[in-house]
Structures are given as C-alpha cells and as structure tokens.
C-alpha cells in the first residue's frame, strides 16, 4: 500500500474518506504463480553493486549481469509473450550478487526461477545441450553407476580420444580430466565399519576419555549430509568428518540422501532438484526431531539446504532443516572450544604452507574467513588466503565446452594468487573449486576437515 492509500492521508478531506476496509479492493497488478518476487524487484534501486561483483560479467562483456537477470528481467517478463533472455544460462549460480546487494534483493532466487522457466519453456528437450546439462546436473546417477566399476570408469573417463569424442558429440570439454572414483565409496566404508552403532560407541568412548561428562548424551548427535562428491570421489573427506566429530564426542548418523540440488538449480532442472530435495528434507527432518543437527562438508550443499530450499520449496520440514544445517567447521566453532583444541595441537612434518581459496558458497554464508582464522593458531602449518576471486568452475559450468574459456578466464586471478603464495598445496571446502585449483596449478588440494583430522585425531 502506498502512502496515497492511507486512510490517514491529510490530502483527503474528512468527508471524502471511505472506510478502507470496506471499500478497498486490491487490484492484482502482477498475477503470480508459486513465487511472488515483486517485493524483491521493487527493492532494487539499481546501484549496480551486484554487477561489479559478478565473476562472469567481469570476463564476458556480453553477459548483462545479475541486475538484469534478476529484477529487470522479472519486470520485463510481466508482459505477455515475453521470453526469458537466453543469457540466463551464462549465469554460473555463484550467488555473489546476494551478498553484494545492500537492499536484500533475492537475486539468486530470481535467477534460479528465471533459469527454470527458460529451460522449461524455451529450451528444446531434443537438444544435445539439454541432455548434456541434464546428465551433468544429475551427476549422482552417473556416479552411482561409475562407482560400481571405479577402475574401469577411471580408465575410460580419462582416455584422451574418448574425451575428444565427448566434447564433439556431447559438449563436454576435453580439457578437463574427470575426477577419479574411489575404489570404495564412503557409504560402503560406513556400512563396513558398523554404521551408526559403531559411531555411537566411539563417540561414547571419546566422551568418557574427555572427563566422563555426558557419557549418555542426547545433544551430541549429528546427521551427516555427505553429498555426492564426498561419497563417490573423496571419501577421505567424509571419513575425516566422521572421525573429527566422534573425537569431540558426537554420534554420527548417515541417512539415505539424494543430491543437494545445487547442480540442478544451476542448470534450471528444478523438477529434478525437487525430487531429491523432498527425500532430503523428509529424512533429515525426522532426525532433527530426535535431536540431531545436520552437518555438511561441502559449502554448496549447506548453501542449498539453508538458503535455496526455503526459497524454492515448501515441503514440510524445509524451514526446520534450513535452521539446523551447518558446515562442519562452523558447527565445531560454535559448539566446541575448537580454538583451544588447536592451540594445543600441532601437525607433524616440515611445516606445511597451504594456499586457501574460499568458495563463493562459503563466502555467501559468511564462512569465507573461518579456515584461515582457525588455523592461524595451529602449529606446524601456515594458511594463506589467496584472495576473493571466484575459482570459475562453478560446479558443472566449467565442464561445458562452450563455457570452458570463461571458466578459466575467471579462475586466472586465483591461479596467479596461488602461484604467488608460499605453499604448493591448496585448500578449500568445495570439491569443484578443488578441481579447478588442481587443473589450473597442478597443486594437490586438501579439505580443512582433513587438516583438522591430522591435528586433532591421534592415530
């Protein structure tokens, strides 16, 4: 309601004032579906700060930027017969614009919605691009199959001629090496180890060791959202998460789960995302009722559960899951004396120097500095922040043949900063940022949880 509608309006003589409740019939100016984003569009005052934070716009003059893709496009498409501009597919869903906006415009939500509308209504379901994107977005399905025969998959995936063929026929860049599949998935390891029962036992022992307090604990429970990558490709990260949390006395549960949805949002496959989200929300909210908090080890997964789910879905329990989801490091910083523990700890070896890159999805959660801050106090290791640039790969984005050059142009600043840093090992929370860091510099990349495990969990 504008000022002019106010019954207190001084410009209207008393006799002409009607009873607002009786006479006022709201006119629906912008008929809407599920998501009414008008208030967001109205909040944009065109300061363009989002555009100056967009890593794609930085290297691609043709990309109109988040201000256009969000509030401006939202208004334009109020007109009948208006179409979504295809450039929406050039947005990499880094979500930096959200953090940049001083007016709280829900930019990434607008982009997700516009992208889904574009894919639904304007993209041919018979195009190679559509199917390529769909396969990339549904990485988990391919990974499930691939992980059944990991050695064969690894050999095939990194066969040069096959990769060239993949680029030609399917639009997957031949420049990148596929991530290796682990010979044993995390879930296989977890089951083998005895699942939640073993974790409960170990957590209890750890609590007893730490002074006997809380041997019976109702609160020290976490449900692990491992995501696809830690399960199929880097189970060492997932194992580190389990061991570190058990070390602090937490009982870990690993419920059945699908993909977090990040690659699906980024490719406009909202229906695919909705299916997995429903499974995740249902399984995790059951555990939240039993006193569990949800822990992620990938910042895109936690971003998705915390922010994108409530923005896009309305399943029962969605808000509950969002409110109880944390990044692993973040959770320990809040609930444990992690600083004290690291003060006393050290990592062996020659004094390793790590070049740390904060993923965009850590930045958006305000977690971009926590690893550097935390490991500052740890003996035997130095962590250097390599700056605030985006790595450029953005999940599936950098795998697309037509986006590869953009992806590498964005990453250039990070590669240079890494080369300037003292160490020759990288560190980041995001598996695809890790891929890009490795691809651009040849460095080995670690996860902060692995470093925590080295420092805190004695063999």
């Amino acid at each position, binding site marked *: 309601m504008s000022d002019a509608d106010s019954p207190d309006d001084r410009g209207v003589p008393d006799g002409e004032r009607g009873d607002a409740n009786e006479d006022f019939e709201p006119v629906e100016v912008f008929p809407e579906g599920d998501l009414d984003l008008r208030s967001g569009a109205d909040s944009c005052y065109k300061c363009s700060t989002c555009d*100056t934070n967009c890593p794609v716009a930085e290297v691609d003059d043709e990309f109109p930027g988040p201000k256009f893709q969000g509030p401006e496009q939202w208004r334009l498409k109020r007109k009948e017969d208006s179409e979504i501009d295809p450039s929406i597919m050039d947005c990499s869903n880094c979500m930096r614009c959200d953090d940049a906006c001083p007016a709280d415009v829900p930019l990434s939500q607008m982009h997700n919605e516009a992208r889904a509308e574009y894919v639904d209504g304007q993209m041919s379901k018979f195009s190679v691009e559509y199917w390529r994107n769909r396969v990339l977005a549904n990485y988990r399905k391919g990974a499930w199959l691939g992980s059944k025969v990991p050695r064969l998959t690894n050999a095939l995936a990194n066969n040069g001629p096959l990769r060239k063929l993949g680029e030609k026929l399917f639009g997957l860049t031949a420049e990148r090496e596929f991530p290796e599949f682990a010979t044993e998935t995390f879930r296989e390891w977890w089951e083998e180890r005895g699942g939640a029962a073993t974790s409960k036992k170990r957590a209890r022992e750890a609590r007893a060791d730490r002074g006997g307090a809380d041997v019976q604990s109702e609160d020290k429970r976490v449900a692990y959202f491992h995501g696809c990558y830690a399960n199929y490709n880097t189970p060492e990260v997932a194992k580190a998460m389990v061991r570190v949390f058990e070390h602090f006395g937490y009982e870990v549960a690993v419920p059945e789960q699908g993909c977090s949805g990040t690659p699906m949002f980024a490719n406009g496959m909202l229906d695919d995302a909705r299916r997995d989200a429903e499974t995740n929300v249902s399984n995790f909210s059951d555990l939240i009722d039993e006193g569990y908090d949800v822990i992620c080890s990938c910042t895109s997964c936690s971003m998705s559960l915390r922010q994108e789910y409530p923005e896009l879905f309305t399943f029962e329990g969605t808000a509950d899951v969002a409110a109880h989801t944390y990044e692993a490091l973040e959770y320990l910083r809040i609930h444990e004396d992690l600083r004290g523990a690291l003060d006393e700890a050290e990592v062996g070896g020659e004094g390793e120097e790590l070049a740390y890159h904060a993923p965009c999805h850590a930045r958006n959660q305000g977690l971009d500095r926590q690893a550097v801050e935390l490991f500052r106090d740890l003996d035997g290791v130095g962590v250097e922040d390599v700056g605030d640039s985006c790595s450029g790969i953005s999940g599936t984005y950098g795998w697309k043949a037509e986006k590869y050059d953009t992806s590498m142009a964005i990453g250039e600043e990070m590669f240079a900063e890494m080369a300037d840093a003292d160490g020759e090992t990288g560190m980041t929370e995001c598996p695809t940022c890790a891929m890009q860091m490795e691809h651009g510099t040849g460095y080995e990349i670690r996860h902060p949880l692995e470093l925590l495990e080295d420092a805190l969990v004695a063999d």
Partner: protein
Amino acid sequence: MAIEQDVLVIGGGLAGATAAISAARTGADVRLVSSKQPTLRHASGLIDVLGYTPDGEGPLADPFAALSDLPEGHPYERVGRDAVEAGLALFDEIVGNTYEGNHTERNALIPTQGGRVKPTARYPASVSAGLASDERDALLVGFERLAGFDASLSAARLNATGVPFTARGAAVEFPELSSADPKVTRFAQLLDRDEGVDAGRGVRREVTERVTTHMDGEDRVGFPAVLGDDHPEEVRADLESHLGAAVFEIPMGPPSLPGLRLEDRLYDALDEAGVRIETGNPVVGYESKSRGNGVETVLVDRTGSTVPYGAEQFVLATGGLVGKGIESDRSGVEEPIFDCHVAHPSDRYDWFADDAFGDHRFARFGVDPDRELRPRDAHGKIEFDNLRAAGAVLGNYDFAAEKSGSGVSLATGSHAGRLAGENT
C-alpha cells in the same frame, strides 16, 4: 559458547573498521561482524569532516574552527576535538600516501561528477590535481557508455560556480569495450591490465591518443574515477606521461572505485591488526547479562540458524537509515538490534519538511549517546554498560547537509573502539 572475544564490533563500514582497529591496538582480541559487503564501495572515497554548519553556513574553510559551536548532542560535541583529531590521525596512518589533505587543517574544494564543488578534509591522491582552487585550466573527459558523467555539462557547471580556471568537456569512446552497458569496474580492469588494442598498443595509450585530439593547451585532464582498481597509481602515471599533463579523477556515485580502494586498504589494516572478520550474516538481536544492564551476547543469523557471539564490550556501527542501522515504518523509528531509544516525533508527518532541501527531521534520526558514546534512553540513562555506538547510527547530526559523514565515523569509531578495548 565458543565464539567469544574481548570486543565485538557490529558493522563493517568506516566507523566499524576504525573501531575494530582502535580496539585491537589496545591489545584486545577483536571480532568484526558485518551483515553484507561493507558499503564503503558506495562512498565517494572523500573524507569530509565538516563542510557546512548545521545552520547551513559554508562552505567552511576550517572545519575545526566550527567544532566548538556545534549544538549539544552532536557527535562531535559528544567526543570533543581531540577525538576528531585522533580519528583523522588513525586514518592518515592507515592510508599512507594514497590520500592527501593532512598537511593542513583547512578543507579542500573538490569538483564532483555533477560539476559542483565540495569541501572535504582528506581526498585520494588521484583527485588532488583536480582541486578547484588550482588555477590551471582543465579538460574534463567522459567515456561514451559510462553513465553518470557528462563531461561538457560538468565543465559548464564548474565554470558557472566561478572556479578560478576554465573547464572544457569532451567525450571519447573507450577502447576494447563491447558491452552496451559496461560496469565501472570493467573500465578499471581494462586500464589495470593495459591489454593490447593492436600492435602492442595498450588501452592506456589508446585512451590518451583519443584524448589528445581534444586538448587545447590544458595542463590537467580530469576523468571519471575509474582509473584502475588494483594499480591506480600506475594507471594514472602512465596516462600523465602519455598526455604530458596532470591527470585527476572526479569522484563518482556508487559503485565507486575510490570507495573500493579505500575498503581494500581498511580491510588490509584490519588483518594486520589481527581483527577477526566475518561478513555475510546480520546481527539480529542480543541477550542481556543475568546481572546488571550489560549485553552478554549478540545473536547472528546464519542463513536460518541463530548463533550467539559473546564479548565483554560491544560497538554498534551499523549505519543510519540507508545502512539499515536505523529502521522506520509507518508506526515509528527504531534501532533494530538492541532497541536503543531513537527520539522521533510521534506524528510521522513531522519527520520531514515539505521543501526537498529543507530541514528534515529524519536526517538526524539515530541513537543519543553520552560522552563515552553509550546510547541513552529517553530519560538520559545509559542503556547498556558495555555497548557503544559509532558512525551513522548516531543521531543529532545531518551528515548529508553538513558534509560530516566520514569525519563522524572516524572520530566516534576510534573513540568507541579505544574505550571498548581499554575496558576489557
């Protein structure tokens, strides 16, 4: 409770950064929490102390001479002249030779993008050749497709204000840009990288070639403030040597490169001071101490979950109405985190004046502190023993009309931060 500091500063702008650095220098363990990217990139980069009196007299040649006449309750009146000088001294130390103006207590006059002249106390070195008191003729150069700066219009307005020189305007096409709507940062990046246009000739050289054709004996050339982000000194030096004339920047609206550069410098200084920094999550509330009237923790909203942050001392530097440190709706005006008292007329039609440039009450909305910058309630009683406020969240001054925003942030930020640190 695991996230705990001696001093916690809420807000990452000029006041918050200054407070955090001052507190850290007392030896305190300091954390700075800011809800979004700092809004410094929305600022011109000019550091105003006092350009006009609250009665509208000015431009003032000497801001310090006017300090003693300020009304009771004005932030400068609260902290006193020493604090204003301490804030500026801290600033001068942080920015080093990238800023000028500290050789004198007098204000400098800087041409703005709209062709007006603004009194300011400190200014980026990049604008110093543009001072309006300088008698050298100036060519102002705009770039086609860069919105917000019309060089001919600015020049005409400058001449009309009676500057002691002649200004002329010209516009050139910026090389290497294909976008129809390029961002200011794009111009800066192209100049930073000085990539080749053809045959090894970089963007910097190409720009100056195009400008040279418009020059008519001017000794100085003004550009909109997009001359580099990472290497502004180098960009300007190159342009100067190619043009054979002094080069200066004209401060622009948001997003502003001088603001971004200042932000980088301040955050480097925060890092050096050992301040722990978190941006991206807002502080949404607090918990009181079980005894006395102190703040025990503030509550940070982390994308859905609320996390308590503890400290002995707190500094509130969340900004004014624009920065959302003060909020208003139809029923009232409030400080949203601690619900500190904000005096305002109960009838909202008294919040503003009818004249657009009149004396608007809303411009002075904010919390009302004692001399140690602790917010006071409606009866003048201190609201919390361990909470201080700094910057635009303070009331009783109109920074836009007085041109005093940065000076108040520096003076109250350094004062609040030092007191917070000393009380741990």
